[in-house]
């Protein structure tokens, strides 16, 4: 690594850390600006002012906001994200517990989306203006048009209630967690729901990017050399066409996580998204902070890695 790049990397990492600090301050403030508080949820229907005051004191919510933030941030720096207001479990353990299902869901959806979108995009680009193109566009339109909560419920209706083929919700059945087939059966509908929504934009990007590449000189040269149509498209054109698609995949990460929030709620999928939704409704501040910090870190790190990777991959980019 040359020194210019090293300085740049150090700068970028420092900036990323500052960014996370900023995000945590903003999150903390916004979260606490929202009306209501956890005490109403913790007490339930038999609310009393006395019990509420007691809970606020126990949770440290009666202290000045700035002190609360400093307390939280200090502990977070030491790796302690606090305990859930609702259950008393350590936030880190709650998140760790939910990470697996979310990674499984989002990774599965991403693979599915790419696996379908890229071939469809290629087909639509190569056969531009034919029925394949229209069909591809229709699929894309379908994907972007329907919100995941609606799509999820429709898929459940079709596959569980009408055809009795797949279970409607959950990660697995009790006592069958170890069985791969049970887990896969439960994963089909949520993965499909989340994947379909991503599919649309990936397909459109593949199509337009490939169309552009196909018009370029080197493709014409390849064709002129007498290479077969398939070989030109798959070996020469697609590889270049996929570069912007890969960028889009990277950028789609927050969307994917956002989609997972809804999808996990519909399918009672015990992942990070549901943890976050529950925490927001219950004003479980430590959990809200923990989950959002995790998502922010993932996004910041992903951007950092992308930026650093650019200059490693592409020799034309240099930093001073």
């Amino acid at each position, binding site marked *: 690594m040359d020194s210019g790049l090293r300085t740049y990397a150090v700068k970028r990492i420092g900036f990323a850390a500052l960014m996370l600090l900023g995000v945590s301050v903003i999150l903390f403030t916004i979260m606490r600006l929202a009306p*209501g508080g956890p005490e109403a949820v913790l007490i339930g229907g038999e*609310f009393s002012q006395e019990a509420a005051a007691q809970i606020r004191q126990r949770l440290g919510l009666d202290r000045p906001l700035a002190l609360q933030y400093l307390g939280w941030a200090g502990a977070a720096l030491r790796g302690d994200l606090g305990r859930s207001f609702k259950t008393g*479990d350590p936030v880190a353990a709650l998140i760790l517990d939910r990470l697996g299902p979310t990674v499984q869901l989002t990774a599965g959806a991403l693979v599915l989306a790419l696996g379908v979108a890229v071939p469809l995009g290629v087909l639509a680009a190569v056969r531009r203006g034919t029925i394949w193109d229209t069909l591809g566009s229709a699929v894309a339109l379908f994907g972007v048009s329907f919100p995941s909560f609606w799509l999820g419920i429709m898929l459940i209706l079709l596959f569980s209630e009408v055809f*009795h083929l*797949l279970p409607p919700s959950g990660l697995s059945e*009790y006592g069958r967690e170890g069985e791969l087939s049970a887990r896969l059966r439960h994963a089909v509908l949520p993965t499909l729901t989340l994947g379909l929504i991503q599919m649309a934009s990936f397909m459109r990007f593949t199509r337009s990017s490939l169309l552009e590449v196909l018009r370029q000189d080197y493709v014409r040269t390849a064709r002129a050399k007498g290479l077969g149509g398939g070989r030109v498209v798959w070996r020469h054109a697609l590889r270049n066409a996929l570069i912007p698609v890969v960028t889009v995949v990277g950028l789609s990460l927050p969307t994917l996580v956002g989609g997972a929030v809804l999808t996990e709620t519909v399918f009672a999928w015990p992942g990070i998204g*549901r943890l976050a939704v529950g925490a927001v409704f219950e004003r479980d501040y430590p959990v809200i902070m923990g989950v959002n910090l995790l998502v922010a870190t993932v996004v910041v790190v992903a951007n950092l890695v992308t930026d650093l990777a650019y200059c490693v991959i592409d020799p034309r980019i240099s930093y001073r």
Partner: protein
Amino acid sequence: MIHAILLALLVAIIGLTPTTSPAAGKDFVIGLSGDATSLNPVVATDGQSYIAEWPLFDSLVELDQGLNVKPLLAESWEVSRDGLTYTFKLKRGVKWHDGKPFTARDVAFTFYSVLDPKVTTPHRAYFDALAGFPELTAKENPRRPEELAVRPIEVVDDHTVRFRLRYPSGSFLAVLVNPRAGIVPEHLLRGADLNTAEFNRRPIGTGPFKLAEWRRGERLVMEANDQYHGGRPALDRLIFRIIPDSVVLLQELRAGGVDFIENPPLTEVARLKQTPNLKVLVADNTSYTYFGWRQDLAPFTDVRVRRALYHAIDVPTIVREVLQGYAAVSTGQFPPSSWAFDPSVKPYAYDPARAKALLAEAGFKPGSDGVLTRDGKRFSFSVRHDQANQSVKDTAVIIQEYLKRAGVEVHLEPLDWPTFVKKLFASEFEGIVVGWTNHHDPDPFAYTIWHSSQWKGRNFAHYKNTRVDEALEAARRTGVTAERKKHYAEFSKLLMEDAPYVFLYFQQQVYVTRAGYEGFVPIPTFAGIYQSLKSVRWTGK
């Protein structure tokens, strides 16, 4: 083609076969919309926690379908002639889930914990009648039980426990029932902070089921307690699955993934009744939904205005349209199933003409925009309600429409629950529509909602009527049911005369279960049906 290949692959991997329900009759799967908070009955107070801790902990006494108490951990009891001493004989041979014997010390420990001001629990107020209550629960320098001249709870021997009261209380036995009064083990909790104890996540009780697993936000699994003092339950396992979406919950029931759900969308109930392998169970409830307002804000200070609002709203139609008939019209604080209910109290009938006349009498004149005005002020106010409760939401919309016809303008303000509750208790509202928990005994809630000493508590609408105060106090301080009944009848009449709210309805609890499960007892109180899980069995029919 690609789709076909993918589908073929999928089928090959997963081996698509129709879904089957888990071992019928052995695992009973209950669908819940949310997870429990705590499984310790001393500190658990929300609905989901009540449902989940109930099968794990037994209380001294339990309710029957007529809301009378019957023995559970207490075999029998004696009440002294002056009504101030209750002596309970405890069942022998009862064991905690960890095998240790259950004794009178556990009972004393449980209720001293409830009284301990360091413990966060709204149940404390229900024990107001206990001797030493003010000293033990004082915010500043609370006394310890040993420091009192008279022990409020005395362990006579391993199987006898005595409670001493400072005034005769008709509600004392009634507050000793689940889910608010499950007995917790002293040997595991002594010295622990009950608010945060690990026990609350891994509880040990004396109940018919033992906790096997709690995966937060996903499921709770309980296994039959072979040593249960009332005989081993017929079901091997209770599996509570957390499924937040009500539509998906319903689909899980139809697909066989769950065997029991509560509160399906009411518009679906007729269809569910037609489904051959499902059974709909209905239980009355003690909680009512009302349309209320701040009693101390004009123009609600004028009784003519309050009665006019009552006359302007057709409650039976709301019950029919919004609740699909699964509710009883409310005439006050007490449900028709309660012994304190007085059938002679009648609500103000739907009579738009009368409503208009009363408002005119109160000095309101129609304004240019159709809204009534008085002294240049339009009769317009906001009504806050919980945005997540569908029947409350629909009710609020209908009320808005009825009042518009009467010349009163209502702005609806749906709020999320934590915000709504906070505003409610801070008395930050003009009007509200809310469904509220209620106790099966009349005292705990009638007193805290309507007594004028409770403005900082549940009387957040700021109601005050000295005659009502007197009736409530008199009813509280007698152990004789006939006398209590008389005082509560007086209270109910006064309340309806004042028309402090439009009492709307007591919504019923609707449950759907798979046909073949028998033994449910729909006790007419909140979540009362869950008490009968120990008697539920699979008949296969």
